[in-house]
């Protein structure tokens, strides 16, 4: 079916168009929304950078602190705990408590 003539006839009639004010309002709203999106984007980057910086500072500080402790105690890592006086005294106290509970022969 050929509707060319009818289509031409219809097409000659103008369609209602949105008022120009619609476009102006839209662009105004969109400008505000885009500005807010840019601000949000920037804030996210700032927070991510700050979090990253805190992690790095924490790692560096932890490393410096470990090295300082090692210098003071003469032992690195867990050995400085095991080798400490407080740790030895704690072990001795626990052994004495067990002797008191179990008796000299190890029987309760």
């Amino acid at each position: 079916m050929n509707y060319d003539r009818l289509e031409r006839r219809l097409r000659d009639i103008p369609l209602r168009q949105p008022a120009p004010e619609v476009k102006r309002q839209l662009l105004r709203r969109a400008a505000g929304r885009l500005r807010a999106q840019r601000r949000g984007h920037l804030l996210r980057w700032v927070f991510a950078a700050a979090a990253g910086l805190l992690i790095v500072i924490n790692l560096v500080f932890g490393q410096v602190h470990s090295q300082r402790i090692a210098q003071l105690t003469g032992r690195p890592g867990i050995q400085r705990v095991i080798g400490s006086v407080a740790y030895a005294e704690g072990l001795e106290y626990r052994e004495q408590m067990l002797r008191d509970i179990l008796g000299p022969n190890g029987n309760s």
Partner: protein
Amino acid sequence: MRANQFRTGNLMNDRSEDRDLLTALARGDLGALEDLYEAYAPPVYHLLLGRVGDQDKAQDLLQEVFMALVDRGGKVGKIRNLRAYLFAIACRKASGLNKRRSATENLSQVEPTAGDVGLAESVAVRDALNQLPAEQREVVVLKVWHELTFAEIGQALDISPNTAASRYRYAMEKLRAILGEMNDEL
């Protein structure tokens, strides 16, 4: 002034042009939004006007449709078919509005005007279009004034191309009968 100035055959059929503008919009380019509005506002508006039947509401919803693009932010560049996307949003917003309203005024998209073709002809076409069921009328508007293919209309309205073609045929036969009758009387 020729009435054809209101023809909107300038829809962006070139997907790469759409993509470039969407990419620019994702970067916050307001000029890209303006270009997209110029290209797509008329058909979206006519779809909305046909569905809600009220100029002011159709214009409000038209803004909401394009603000939905802006609200996608950086993800807007991932839209593959912009026309279908805009029409889908428009249909959703129109049906959301119609659910909240009890009746819709039957407002034609055609503007009766005493231009080149004469007021009588404009009124005749408007009245003839108003006699069509809404779903046929919107297919006619998209096909005749916006020069969409049936495949594109189907995609936009979420119907099959065959359904779009059928609605168009029935509509045109009815229009031919109505306008033919009125011409015989003139």
